[in-house]
């Protein structure tokens, strides 16, 4: 009997097969259809933007992060998501910088994976929004030749990008500033102007359903966001159709689906408790509608999620589960 090769560990001695890298890489892999759709609509420009943002995120994680932290796959998700919420014509160096900023200031500085308070991809995008307000709101028209660049993607850093591409406003911008509606079918399929990945709602929903089925995504926050936006948007539309678009338009336009499915489900920055996830989702939905209808910006998903991220510790505090053997006592009182 060979006893000296036996190990001794604390119980439990077995473990479920799911691991953090497995969850992260599966989420990253589930973005492939979304990326493919954006390549279909915006051609090679979409891929170049995603590539630049991801490169920025990965390099920063490698340089500043903990040893081997690239393996857990979370920097990959951050990079891909950032790329997906940028316009397809943005210069690549800006996308790269956004990825680097998102990981550096959105994650590493907090202590790495699991410690950050705000979604790193959205931190990167918020930085770009502040630093390059024009570039990040220049929306090229979808379609056209696959290899045709949608903007001055290869502009040198800090040079003024020259852009002679046909631009179009996003459906939300069109409604807000020109009071023009967009057909619902275009919104669902994604044949509208907008960020790289916020165009095809149907593909994002399918990816989200897949992740929820695998158990890698908690459905409570995305569902509560969509329902809240639908109900509140519908209510405001009934009160004042000129100011607020109809509920379906609200749900399927802009970055709502991408944000709800992929960013409001980032386990690190949303509440841990299921009750808290409902609160988070409802809060995000309300903020999205308020910013879109009453704010100066046409789109509010990014700020809505970032603001709710700030409330996450507070929500956690107030939604702690009641311990076994204390609940019935409370009911009896």
């Amino acid at each position, binding site marked *: 009997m060979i006893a000296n090769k036996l190990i001794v560990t604390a119980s439990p001695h*077995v473990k479920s097969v799911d691991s953090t890298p497995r969850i992260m890489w599966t989420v990253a892999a589930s973005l492939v259809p979304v990326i493919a759709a954006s390549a279909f609509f915006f051609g090679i420009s979409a891929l170049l933007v995603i590539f630049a943002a991801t490169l920025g995120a990965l390099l920063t994680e490698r340089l500043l992060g903990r040893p081997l932290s690239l393996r857990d796959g979370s920097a990959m998700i951050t990079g891909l998501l950032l790329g997906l919420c940028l316009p397809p014509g943005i210069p690549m160096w800006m996308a790269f910088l956004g990825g680097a900023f998102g990981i550096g200031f959105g994650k590493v500085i907090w202590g790495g994976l699991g410690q950050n308070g705000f979604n790193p991809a959205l931190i990167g995008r918020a930085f770009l929004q502040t630093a390059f307000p024009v570039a990040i709101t220049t929306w090229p028209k979808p379609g056209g030749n696959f290899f045709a660049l949608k903007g001055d993607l290869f502009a040198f850093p800090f040079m003024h990008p020259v852009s002679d591409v046909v631009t179009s406003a996003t459906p939300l911008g069109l409604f807000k500033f020109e009071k023009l509606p967009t057909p619902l079918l275009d919104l669902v399929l994604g044949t509208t102007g907008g960020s790289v990945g916020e165009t095809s709602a149907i593909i994002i929903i399918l990816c989200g359903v897949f992740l929820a089925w695998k158990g890698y995504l908690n459905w409570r926050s995305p569902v509560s966001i969509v329902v809240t936006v639908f109900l509140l948007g519908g209510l405001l539309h009934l009160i004042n159709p000129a100011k607020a678009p109809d509920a379906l338009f609200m749900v399927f336009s802009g970055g709502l689906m991408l944000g709800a499915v992929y960013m409001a489900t980032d*386990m690190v920055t949303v509440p841990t408790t299921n009750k808290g*996830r409902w609160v988070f989702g409802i809060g995000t939905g309300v903020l999205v509608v308020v910013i879109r209808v009453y704010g100066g910006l046409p789109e509010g998903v990014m700020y809505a999620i970032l603001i709710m991220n700030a409330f996450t510790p507070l929500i956690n505090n107030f939604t702690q589960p009641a311990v076994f053997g204390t609940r019935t006592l409370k009911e009896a009182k």
Partner: protein
Amino acid sequence: MAFFGFAHGVHPPEEKELTSGLPIRRMPFPDELVLPLRQHAGKPATLCVKVGDKVERGDPIGLADGFMSVPIHASAAGTVTAIDWWPHPDGTMAQAVHIAVDKYAPQVPRPRLVPRWEGLTVDEVVKAVQSAGVVGLGGAAFPTHVKLAPPKDFTVHTLIVNGAECEPYLTSDHRTMVEYPERVHFGCRIMMHTLGVKKAVIGVEKNKPDAIAALERTKPKDLDITIMPLTVKYPQGAEKMLIQSVTGVEVPSGKLPVSVGVVVQNVGSLAAVAEVFDTGLPLIERIVTVTGHGLRRPANLIVPVGTKLKDLLTYCDGITADAAEVIIGGPMMGLSQANLEAPVIKGTTGVVVLASHETRGETVYPCIHCGRCLDACPVFLNPSWLGDLARVKRYDDMAEFHLADCMLCGSCSYVCPSNIPLSQLFQASKVMLRRAQQAGAA
């Protein structure tokens, strides 16, 4: 009776098919037995033999030290060869009596050491159960007679029998119910009489239909015994979970089951009580599931208490080249063994030999607050939060977040994708907290 069920819990692979169809067989006596004096919860037994003494099968070698203690008996005839400190399955050393088994002794039944049950008063039954050394055979080894004599200011209305056996791999209770259902019912009769209850419920997980059928077939006509199929879910066999599944009542936090009028006994303990009164021999052997993908020949065996692990594993043709970890008990709450000289004791439900691919990896990732542990915890704690507190040694804060309610079932560690040893952290924190309280009191 309706099935209520408990919320949360996990579904580890059952792996019971390795042994669930194998009949219980008797293992031959090994050459040497090692009997620790501490085999039960409560005070260890006090030594009553010396080196060189000849003992018969069933003779006491350690006497009960007060009410919260039980005696230890020789599980085979032989000679006491040494009394020393020996590896205990819980990882410590314990005072133990070594007996060289007399190969030519008949090892046959002898004049009764335990009286017949018929005509005994309640107190006499409790005393007989104690003197027979019967403890809970579900793993915790809590003295059975203590549970049979609940404090007088509580009324007990139901006896709940735990036949859930929710730990993966283990089948000793399963085989007991399939092969000795009469014994289970006889034990149930004795306990119902002693507790003065009219109603008993035997809870069995639905993955043991043959056990449920056997118990139904042999159910005595004159007793109100219900056999209740339970959802297959870990930890269904945890005392408070089982009570909720059977009665729908939550045992209040920090209270004993008797506070809601129930007493829970393991099905193996019932069979042991029945056997003790039947044969007149004290508890000197038990049914052990020896199994795992790292073992050559899994089996359900009647093993003399005190058999060393190495003898037991050798009898099962030894461990495979792939074997990585030997566990006493099940893989969720069992104890990993560092020394195969450690003996099988009364609380040993099984010996599981895990193959290397089944063991936990060493890489631990940061907590990503996915919340899976919250969905797994059967007592509704926040293991993620408690784990963060444990790592910065804030034990007092952990107490405020109900660390005392944690029963170390391991569900949180099982589901944690970051492989954080939550259960281990909580166990250590409980010890640190107790030490701090003792230091504060002193």
